[in-house]
């Protein structure tokens, strides 16, 4: 698919524009509730909760449909009492007084809950380092927020808002594909940013604002599985690219050069970012959480987006693209190993885990689970299936199962799915092409939904994260520069275009997945700061790549390149 058509198919442009327009639209509505600062408790960043007024009534029900874990980082009070003027029940959907969902059978269960008063809005901690927790699953016993029926007087407003939002989405999708608008994007130098899908982060961020009220806490919590699925999907696709034969073709010398380059860049990024983290947070360098955070930053920073190789390919250097692609592959391998080590040796703090194992055992368990699930998925793939729809079911189910299983065992879904994907890439069978097509088909929608949820979880008001982001991007540029220039001085094989492309390379999806994975693993800790640094860094590097390469006579004319995770060339999508 060409880049123009792709812009239609994946209206990232839309996301940003919609976010901007609707933010203005949303700002016309009710003001944002006042931020309430909680007192952080050390690194854990524990937040004091302030209860909203009791008037924030919830629809009554006998058992909350979702007393499962819920996001606790945004629990807004609301005056939206359920309406009872119309008989208090909804005939069609079973909400309201009935508190039942259309498909709820189980006795008295309903969407409603005796949750009682509304939960508070958790806000920015005063200690900038101990930012509010990025938390997907609530601790046991916490009641969830439920979907609140809108009172009669507010219904027309919500109807109008929703329809206007959809109309704007449509208008922007149309405009986004317009030639003149695209020319303007090029002039402004934001094409690459838009093509990366990152505007969907802004969309999620915007939609989760209380004044907008589209992505409520309940809904974000409901969308938590998409986050898990997205992590698993990214990991699986990365693993599916690990073709052992391809790596085996590398000569020992070249493999060594690539490994050294990656290692140097990794160390430089970890070193640079750690220095800033150390100075800014005033933490002890020997503190385990500090080491963990530094490793996460390095792991996320080392990754290069696939768009870099595509950029070189577009510029006419197929050989260059292969080499850069191989370097990218090794970087991803390094990132996976980093994530594996972090997840195994820095276990999440929750003590309710049933299994108490040493770090190495967790490491082996992660690999073992990946292998087991990979073999099961392999068996599933060998089943005689007829159509692409059936493949879609199997791929979606397999990756969701793997990600869920990893999450349930508190293992990294990215790593587990990566191992499974790597096995499938290297096992014999004629399923690979069809599986790859399915992965590509679903990649974009899942990734964009993933980004929306990521945006909804993001606390942009964490200023320490922004400061760290600048240092992180700087350290990353430095690390990459060192990595590519080390061998150049010794007569290495990278040409100037390759070096430039690698230095200015954007971070891509895997970097975001790594930090989201960390956010799920270590809620309520300093990960929120890291989260902002990496996510902000991902946006910034997309801008940097456009800025850094636009004047390059070869790379600058390559146009916008999609960070496609899979191996398939764009034309086959």
């Amino acid at each position, binding site marked *: 698919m060409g880049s123009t058509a792709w812009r*239609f*198919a994946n*209206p990232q442009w839309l996301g940003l524009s919609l976010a901007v327009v609707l933010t203005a639209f949303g700002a016309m509505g009710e003001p944002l509730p006042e931020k309430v600062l909680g007192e952080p408790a050390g690194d854990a960043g524990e937040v004091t909760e302030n209860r909203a007024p009791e008037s924030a009534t919830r629809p009554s029900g006998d058992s909350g449909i*979702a007393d*499962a*874990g819920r996001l606790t980082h945004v629990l807004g009070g609301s005056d939206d009492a359920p*309406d009872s003027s119309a*008989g208090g029940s*909804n*005939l*069609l*959907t*079973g*909400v309201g007084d*009935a508190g*039942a*969902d*259309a*498909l*709820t*059978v*189980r*006795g008295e269960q309903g969407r409603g809950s005796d949750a009682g008063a509304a939960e508070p809005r958790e806000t920015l901690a005063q200690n900038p380092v101990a930012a509010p927790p990025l938390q997907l*699953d609530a601790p*046991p016993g916490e009641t969830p927020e439920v*979907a*609140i*029926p*809108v009172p009669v007087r507010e*219904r027309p407003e919500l109807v109008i808002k*929703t*329809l206007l939002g*959809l109309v704007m989405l449509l208008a922007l*999708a149309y405009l986004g594909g317009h030639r003149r608008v695209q020319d303007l994007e090029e002039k402004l130098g934001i094409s690459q940013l838009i093509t990366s899908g990152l505007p969907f982060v802004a969309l999620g961020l915007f939609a989760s604002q209380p004044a907008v009220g*589209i992505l409520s806490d309940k*809904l974000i*919590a*409901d969308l*938590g599985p998409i986050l*898990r699925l997205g992590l698993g999907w990214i990991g699986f696709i990365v693993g599916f690219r690990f073709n052992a034969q391809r790596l085996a073709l590398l000569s020992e010398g070249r493999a060594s050069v690539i490994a050294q380059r990656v290692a140097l860049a990794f160390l430089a990024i970890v070193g640079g970012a750690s220095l800033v983290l150390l100075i800014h947070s005033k933490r002890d360098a020997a503190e385990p959480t500090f080491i963990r955070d530094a490793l996460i930053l390095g792991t996320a920073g080392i990754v290069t987006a696939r768009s870099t190789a595509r950029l070189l390919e577009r510029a006419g250097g197929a050989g260059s693209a292969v080499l850069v692609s191989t370097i990218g592959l090794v970087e991803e391998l390094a990132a996976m190993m980093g994530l594996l080590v972090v997840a195994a040796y820095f276990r999440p703090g929750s003590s309710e*885990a049933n299994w108490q194992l040493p770090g190495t055992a967790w490491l082996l368990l992660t690999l073992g689970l990946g292998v087991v699930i990979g073999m*099961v998925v392999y068996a*599933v793939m060998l089943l005689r299936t007829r159509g692409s*729809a*059936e493949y*879609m079911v*199997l791929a*979606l*189910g*397999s990756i*969701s*199962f793997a*990600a*869920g*299983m990893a*999450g*349930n*065992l508190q293992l990294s879904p990215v790593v587990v799915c990566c191992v499974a994907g790597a096995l499938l890439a290297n096992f014999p069978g004629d399923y690979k092409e069809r599986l790859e097509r399915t992965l590509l088909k679903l990649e974009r*929608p899942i990734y*964009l939904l993933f980004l929306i949820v990521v945006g909804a979880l993001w606390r942009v008001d964490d200023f320490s994260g922004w400061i760290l982001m600048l240092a992180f991007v700087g350290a990353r540029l430095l690390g990459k520069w060192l990595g590519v220039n080390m061998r150049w001085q010794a007569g290495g094989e990278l040409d100037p275009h390759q070096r430039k492309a690698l230095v200015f390379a954007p971070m891509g999806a895997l970097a975001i997945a790594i930090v989201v994975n960390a956010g799920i693993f270590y809620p309520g800790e300093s990960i929120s700061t890291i989260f902002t640094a990496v996510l902000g860094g991902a946006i910034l590097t997309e801008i940097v790549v456009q800025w850094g390469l636009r004047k390059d006579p070869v790379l600058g004319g390559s146009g916008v390149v999609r960070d496609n995770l899979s191996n398939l060339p764009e034309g086959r999508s």
Partner: protein
Amino acid sequence: MPFVIILVLTGLMQAGRSFDSDHPRASAGTALSFGYLLITAFLVGGLFKRIHLPKLTGYIATGIVVGPSVLGLLTERMVDNLQVFTGVAVALIALTAGTELELRAMRPLFRSIGWVTLLGVGGTTILLAVVVYGARSLLPFMQGMPTVDALAVALVLGVVMVAQSPAVVVALRDETDADGPLTRTVLGVVVIADLLVILAFALASSGAKSVLRGSADAGATALMLTWELLGSLVAGLVIGLLLAVFLRKVRSGSALFILMVCFVVAEVGRRLYLDPLLIALSAGVLIRNSTSVGDQLHHAIEASSLPVYVIFFAVAGATIELGVLASVGLPAVLFVVTRAAGFLTGSRLGARIADAPDVVRRYVGFGLLPQAGLALALSMLFAKAFPEFGADAAALTLGVVALNEIITPALYRAVLVRSGEAGARSRADDRSSDQPEILALASTPSPPESLGQRDAEG
């Protein structure tokens, strides 16, 4: 091989759940249950197909077996959390159903649809109400109830139990690739009956409240109905317009846009007391009948319909409580039989009066038997509307729904096969692809004529 995979997956599922049963991470649990249910139900559906049963019965059966009622591999919380997917699924299925309703092509069937709806659905409602009243000695919650009260409650229960399932009808039509007067008549009837049942429930429950409690706010009820029905229809038309413009002007990326729209419809609609099913249905009807992008929309949805069906019916199965069946077994069986008899007799009579084709006369009643979402929602509403005995009555209606959910899809599938309409769409596609394009176009009559001919031949 599928057996082995199912066993291994089940073993892994059990192992994963045993890790931290006190505090399973909810989002991980949902992803796990989603994946497990999707693969397992899909494989079981394939096994069911081998024994000539509908795949969707396999999906439902999987949900029942792995759900809280039997194996408990899916906890109630997991099932509840999966409802977010079913909300989108309902909207997508309704959109599909809407795009199936080509009014021009269905015009010759309007008479049949009208009479079948009147006698089949209306008659069965009354029949059920009469039998409920007659069998009140079997129903503890109605014993000792004054006659007028009992009649009012019986009427409400009749409406609740008569509800049908457009979702099952659409899913079976897709599964069997069926097309023809029977398929279209059934679809038309269940869609119209869906609206009528909602309306009838509002009126009957309002009337029953006034009888039982001596007061009812007719104005509020009318307002509520107007908002829910008209509001949903109008919202659906606007959504349909937006989708049509998108499909015409933007085209690519339509699957993602449709998914987003369905998500918004499901979530915002619920909060606004609007019905996602009606919204999506009317949007689909508008696109099919007033624009040229109906096929485009249909194809965009079709690509993702299989996972949607699998998860929708599997979750529906997981919500069935078999324990309820044990407690209300005899009356539930009585009402299932009564309902079936009413539908088969009433719809046959209606089809005969309408001079419908023989295939419609003989089989249309079977298409009205399946039940799913609407009946469940009405049961829950009944329980809430009449708290003094609603829970017991809801247990009864849920038992009826459960039985119908398990048994009737197989009957309808068998009927589609027997009527010769199963596979008709793929046969038509094959024929048209075998012929040169110009001949294919020339040999395809306009829809009304085509249907009219088939009706006459039927």
